[in-house]
């Protein structure tokens, strides 16, 4: 066996280890090489779970993160059911519908506490007809995260955790170790209406990919235009994410 062939086998093994032992599965592509390029498989991997959180006080309403996730997973509704597990009943279906999400086919579940919400998520993802499950929970521990991962792998469903602290509740601590495949930080960004038009433009988010298993982090400004079925990349913030909001003005 040649040296090249052996190297290639080793590379594949490493890739498999990095992928968490599971074989490569389908991905949810953003449709823009500048975003898809940071993921090892060319898109957000399905059969995994992902974590999205807001910043500061936003973690109590988690509205930007929820909107971003809804806009992101709208194409998955064609593959199966989508389940949304929450602890506060304030998700408003017409608003989801406005983000291009098929709100009328979403299964909404109200859980009474954290443990129950995580249990429902696991149960949903272990079900063959469920394409994605979204949970608004405070924190996922390492064990719970691993269980969630196993549930995702069973049928290739994608899990999305939206970090949300109960109103007035104490934070469950930082996102220390986590079994999530990717971790996102989502904040609203000022919108830009079409030139000459009054009012607000389509929603925009400043999205930071803080952690990506087997891939690179990144930061972008994305927009969900009316009628479009995917998120549109407005600006690549690249490595300048730690700077002052200078790039924001460039974007706006």
């Amino acid at each position, binding site marked *: 066996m040649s040296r090249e062939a052996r190297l290639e086998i080793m590379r594949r093994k490493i890739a498999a280890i990095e992928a968490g032992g599971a074989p490569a599965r389908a991905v949810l592509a953003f449709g823009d090489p500048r975003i898809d390029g940071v993921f090892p498989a060319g898109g957000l991997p399905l059969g995994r779970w992902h974590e999205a959180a807001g910043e500061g006080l936003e973690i109590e309403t988690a509205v930007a993160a929820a909107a971003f996730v809804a806009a992101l997973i709208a194409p998955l509704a064609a593959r199966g059911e989508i389940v949304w597990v929450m602890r506060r009943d304030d998700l408003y279906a017409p608003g989801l519908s406005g983000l291009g999400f098929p709100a*009328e086919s979403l299964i909404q579940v109200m859980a009474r506490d954290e443990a129950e919400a995580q249990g429902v998520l696991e149960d949903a993802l272990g079900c063959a007809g469920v394409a994605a499950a979204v949970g608004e929970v405070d924190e996922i521990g390492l064990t719970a995260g691993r269980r969630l991962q196993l549930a995702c792998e069973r049928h290739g469903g994608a899990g999305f955790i939206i970090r949300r602290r109960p109103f007035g509740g104490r934070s469950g601590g930082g996102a220390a170790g986590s079994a999530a495949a990717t971790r996102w930080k989502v904040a609203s960004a000022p919108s830009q209406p079409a030139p000459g038009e009054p009012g607000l433009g389509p929603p925009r988010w400043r999205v930071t990919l803080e952690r990506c298993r087997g891939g690179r982090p990144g930061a972008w400004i994305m927009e969900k235009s009316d009628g479009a079925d995917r998120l549109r990349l407005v600006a690549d913030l690249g490595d300048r994410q730690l700077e002052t909001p200078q790039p924001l003005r460039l974007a706006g």
Partner: protein
Amino acid sequence: MALERGARRLFAVDERAAAFGLYVGQKATDAVALVPELATADADPAADGTALTVLCDWCRRFSPAVAMDPPDGLFLDITGADHLWGGERPMMDDLVGRLAVNGLFARAAIAGTPGAAWAAAHFGACATIIAPDAEAESLAPLPIHALRLEAATAAQVMRLGLTTVGRLASLPRDQITRRFGPAVVLRLDQALGRAREALTFRHPPNPWFARLVFAEPISTSEDLARVARDIALELSGRLEAEGKGARRFDLVFHRLDGRSQSLAIGLCLPGRDAVAITRLFLPLLERVDPGFGVETVTLAAEDVESIIQRQAAFDGSRTTAVQETVAPFIDRLTNRLGEDAVWRAEAWPSHVPERAVARRPALSPPRGTGWDPGRPRPLRLFRDPQAIEAVAPVPDDPPIFFRWRGRPHRVRRAEGPERLAEEWWRHPFEAADPARARDYYRVEDEDGARFWLFRAGLYGADAHPKWWLHGLFG
């Protein structure tokens, strides 16, 4: 004892007190004078009612159709149930015997009509069984009170010398009606089977019913789980033989001490798979307190309907497959979290934001037309709008600055107003007030956070409308 017509009177007497000549309605002082060592207790009709309800539930072991006859009676429809005891007589003996073991004295009778059974139980010989079509001669010697007449009517009938049912029945019907009103004839007909009587069963009669009786009472959780599976297998076999499925299953554990504990599960698609049904019951078994042991278990299927063997269509294959894989998941959730914890949203034709969304069961087909995409709506809608301090130019401009939960927000862009008035047709017309209209604005602050604000009412001469935050856009 109970206070009645200004004096304490006897409300009920037991067998031994009756032997002393005491009777219901006697003044307490008279009774104590006759029997100085009389033991009395205050009457508690509410507790009697509760006890009757408990007894009614207990009687479900004999028949699923039990109706209460306050204050002290029960009707059991034993049609089709007596063969389980080997006949009517053994069944009645078993019932009365079990009650006696528990310290309850009961008089029972079996007849073809509820009226005849009532008469025989209250005024006939002990444990009468009236054969079909023998109601007339069996009831003839009984006093007129056996017809369940009102006290005033019964007294009037008695005054004319019609002391027994037989004498009354021998009169022409039109004369009875003319003298005593239609109720007497109706009661007579009901007793003799010429008129039907509707009993209000506490649990509707149900042919989909299975029952397991144990020689030895069981109490361990493994045993409870096993009998739950066994009884589910029995009922599901019958359902399968007839091509039926049920949406609700009611599992009742009857304990040795006469109490019963029931567990219920619901399915979103009619089903009969014993394994799936048992799996739904298993987490609920923790709630069962077996006490000294469980001697009988019953399982009833409700909302029974035919199951059509579905075949995946060429084009609609996905919907069928998804329904079949998702339905058990929905069932698990609804049984664990409650029926209102799992739903899908549906557009409701109302312009009021709080009312624009209806909930439908998770597996019912969609029928809504969706929401108007031309009206932007927030992703999170607060159930109660939150008060904000806002600075806005009078009269109709969006705020330029507002403070929510202590944080200032400077408005960068705004859209609106969208004026939503109340639905005046849902209230009395006079109560409608144009000042309750809301002007909604969509605003974006400097950080890009988007809010849905409204001003309640209009600026007027002395009116200062308040500003509220109703929702957040993503």
